[in-house]
């Protein structure tokens, strides 16, 4: 059983195709792991035991009949609980949606189902994807499988922890300001925030419409590319999805980095960064140089402005996106109200947690009469400047190498006191969302406490194949972090 849990998606795919393993066996192995570990880890909000086995058996039956199946057929997956799954509770880790059962699937879920994946369950997150520690979940806290006194990061904390704890071979998360990349770096797994518009947002419960993207979280780079192949593509139900030839993201994996230029942005290694993190990322740069890449110093002058712009834009859009949660047609409704105004106020005040309310208030303020120009409009102008900054840098390098977070994982409860302090942790991830460009987060070291350190590879729009190439080169040279930590992992429990 341990062996099955150690297999990557790529390996599982081969074994399933050769019928050396059945989907049922794989699914049962993961369900057993969840049963054993998740009480401690808390990655899952909902687990679908029965349905998962049924799905798995259906795929096995098809394979027995000789049907040609996709590479992902029969492989289990965990899905972040802000992605709608028909007939399966989708809560956004909020009291507001604690009993919400969508009558439709998100497009990415439809696509994965069509390919034959097996849904293990819905994964924990910060409430409505607002947060960096998963501590704001209405249901439970998720623990970092590498060290259980620590947070897994957020908002896709459950998605990262599930992969790190071998409770899912891969998972889907979402990234608005770093919510895939940061938990990936805190938990020592691989996460990709794809180019804005490449993965359909239909069925993703919106936080910030111009920033949100769904992306895969996996044990290694190769798996990540495989999954991204499955979920990218134009969707006529999402007017912001881009129609183009996406190609095969695994194509360039083995090409190596000889002759490539990797940009190291000055500003990302400034005052705020933790010494060990800085060392690890610079260490990765040295590894790349060893492999034949050229390290080029570059400058993202707008770094300091991207964070305030991000908080203005994301809060403003969130305040509008979350207004539909009014207790009228679905979701939580307060027990006490005497008129419609009280119904709205009480349902929303009781249904939403503190961080969510804070963002709604901020966003409402930023859009309000008299402040729109100074905050929201200004932030949209700053976005132009950030995009220009990146465009200039990409003229001089193939991709950017940078830290994901100024620190490694915080202790549970450490960051709850000051929201602003917590927001500061997003400094290196938000510029990527503002510009709508892709970024791959993968582990590049471990700190003295045993916590993983992550680096991100940032590319220009639609250059994911390049990022996977560069990421894969690192793994080929240094090994897959998740698999290397095998022995240590179980000590943490």
């Amino acid at each position, binding site marked *: 059983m341990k062996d099955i849990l150690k297999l990557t998606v790529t390996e599982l795919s081969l074994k399933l195709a050769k019928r050396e393993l059945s989907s049922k066996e794989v699914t049962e192995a993961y369900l057993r792991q969840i049963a054993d570990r998740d009480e401690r880890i808390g990655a899952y909000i909902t687990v679908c035991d029965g349905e998962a086995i049924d799905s798995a058996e259906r795929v096995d039956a098809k394979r027995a009949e000789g049907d040609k199946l996709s590479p992902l057929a029969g492989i289990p997956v965990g899905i972040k609980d802000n992605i709608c799954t028909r007939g399966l509770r989708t809560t956004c880790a909020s009291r507001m949606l604690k009993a919400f059962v969508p*009558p439709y699937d998100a497009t990415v879920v439809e696509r994965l189902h069509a390919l034959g994946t097996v849904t293990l369950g819905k994964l924990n997150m910060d409430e409505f994807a607002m947060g960096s520690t998963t501590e704001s979940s209405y249901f439970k806290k998720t623990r970092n499988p590498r060290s259980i006194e620590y947070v897994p990061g957020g908002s896709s904390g459950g998605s990262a922890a599930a992969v790190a704890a071998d409770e899912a071979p891969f998972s889907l998360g979402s990234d608005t300001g770093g919510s895939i990349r940061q938990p990936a770096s805190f938990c020592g797994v691989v996460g990709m925030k794809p180019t804005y518009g490449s993965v359909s947002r239909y069925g993703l419960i919106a936080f910030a419409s111009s920033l949100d993207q769904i992306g895969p979280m996996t044990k290694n780079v190769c798996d990540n590319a495989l999954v991204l192949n499955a979920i990218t593509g134009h969707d006529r139900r999402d007017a*912001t999805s881009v129609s183009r030839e996406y190609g095969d993201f695994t194509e360039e994996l083995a090409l190596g980095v000889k002759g490539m230029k990797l940009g190291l942005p000055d500003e990302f290694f400034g005052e705020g960064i933790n010494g060990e993190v800085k060392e690890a990322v610079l260490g990765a740069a040295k590894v790349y140089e060893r492999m034949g890449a050229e390290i080029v110093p570059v400058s993202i002058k707008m770094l300091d*402005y991207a964070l305030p712009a991000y908080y203005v834009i994301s809060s403003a859009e969130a305040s509008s996106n979350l207004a539909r949660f009014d207790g009228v*047609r679905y979701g939580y409704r307060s027990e006490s109200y005497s*008129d419609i*105004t009280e*119904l709205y*106020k009480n349902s929303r005040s009781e249904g939403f947690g503190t961080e969510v309310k804070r963002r709604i208030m901020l966003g409402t303020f930023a859009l309000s009469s008299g402040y729109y120009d*100074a905050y929201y409009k200004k932030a949209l102008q700053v976005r132009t400047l950030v995009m220009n900054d990146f465009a200039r840098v990409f003229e001089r390098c193939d991709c950017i190498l940078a830290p994901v977070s100024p620190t490694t994982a915080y202790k549970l409860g450490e960051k709850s006191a000051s929201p602003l302090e917590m927001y500061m942790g997003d400094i290196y991830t938000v510029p990527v969302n503002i510009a709508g460009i892709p970024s791959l987060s993968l582990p590049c070291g471990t700190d003295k406490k045993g916590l993983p350190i992550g680096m991100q590879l940032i590319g220009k729009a639609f250059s994911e194949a390049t990022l996977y190439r560069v990421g894969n080169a690192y793994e080929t040279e240094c090994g897959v972090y998740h698999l290397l930590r095998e022995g240590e992992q179980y000590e943490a429990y």
Partner: protein
Amino acid sequence: MEQNEKKPFINVEAVAELARLSLNDAERTAMGNEMAAIVAFAHKLSELDCENVPITAHVEPLFNVMREDKTEKSTERDALLRGAPTKAEGYFTVPRVVES
């Protein structure tokens, strides 16, 4: 905002009203302080002169994304009403609204 020094006055109650949130006294105070801190942080944007900088509302240069005027099957009413806290005779229901 041209002056870098001016900090905006945040009418927490008015904002809460617009957002249909009710805050008790303690919450209002805490929210006020937190918002002031975050807004002061966002104030950093006023350092930049964006006089001739166009806004970017959409990162992808898409336009004219439209669909044909062809009907498709609607969602079954039962499915739509399933999550409704109160309903009657095929309608969603709320307390009587004074006509506006």
